[in-house]
């Protein structure tokens, strides 16, 4: 599979999952579409999928790929600081981190699941 096709696949899966998550949260819990419109969330998923796939192309050995994956996990974990400290002036501001944090892991989790499966070497 080419890197382009893989990036498409990763984007597609991430977009589908994040859309479902966004809609469920909006309908059953809290609506944060004013703070994070769906179109921006989806463009973020595509951007992350393509940029991670592009950066991974520089990892030629097993060792560099291991470092890359570890870095990805660390960055994903550290990135949760942003929704925790964000002031959004929303009626349900306290619940914003609970909404945003799972979204931070969608692309990395699918990356870590699919990449070893489709690029065995």
């Amino acid at each position, binding site marked *: 599979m*080419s*890197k*382009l096709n893989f*990036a498409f696949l990763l984007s597609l899966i991430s977009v589908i999952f994040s859309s479902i998550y966004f809609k469920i949260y909006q309908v059953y819990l809290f609506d944060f579409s*004013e703070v994070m419109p769906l*179109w*921006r969330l989806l*463009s*973020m998923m*595509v*951007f992350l999928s*393509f*940029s991670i796939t*592009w950066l991974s192309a520089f990892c030629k050995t097993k060792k560099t790929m291991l470092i890359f994956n570890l870095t990805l996990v660390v960055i994903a974990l550290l990135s949760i600081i942003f929704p925790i400290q964000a*002031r*959004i*002036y*929303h*009626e349900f501001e306290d619940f914003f981190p609970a909404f945003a944090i799972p979204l931070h892991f969608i692309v990395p989790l699918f990356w870590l699941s699919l990449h070893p499966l489709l690029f065995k070497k």
Partner: protein
Amino acid sequence: MKTKISYLMFGSILFASAAMTFAPIDNFEVIEGHSIEFKSKDPSGSFKKLDGTIAFDDANLADSKFNLSIEVASINTGNGMMNKKAQIDEWFDEAKYPTIKFKSTKVEKVGSTYQITGNITMKGITKEYVIPAMKSKEGKKLVFKGTFYVDRLEFKVGHKSDVVPAKMKIIYSIPAEQK
């Protein structure tokens, strides 16, 4: 040739998604220099602490939003005793309701001014108000100014009294800077 097209497609999608992700929104944040004054025969004063965000676009008023929060504890009537009294449960009940909130639902332009329809939440009670606003622009800074009346009894702030009128005149000036 095929590889070049692949690279081109990859780069284009990456660039387009990055442009959308980081596209600026006309979002403003309330900055220092604001004033929320209330005036009546007795008492008069102001709230010193206000924060919030304003999404404002003259060309797209349908998506314009005001989301403001006033700290009740920042009330200043010019009399320390009165400030403390204003925070007890009979009046603002600061311990239980530390903020007064305003969230707009509709922004309309009427002549050269704006009418901001929204919900004021005070002491746990939410009422819809239409607030007139004048807008001025200084560089990246917007300033909204206006005057309106709030009926304190609608929000159960204090009781009916001959000394303190039910309707309080609110004079506000809110400067906001683009984020």
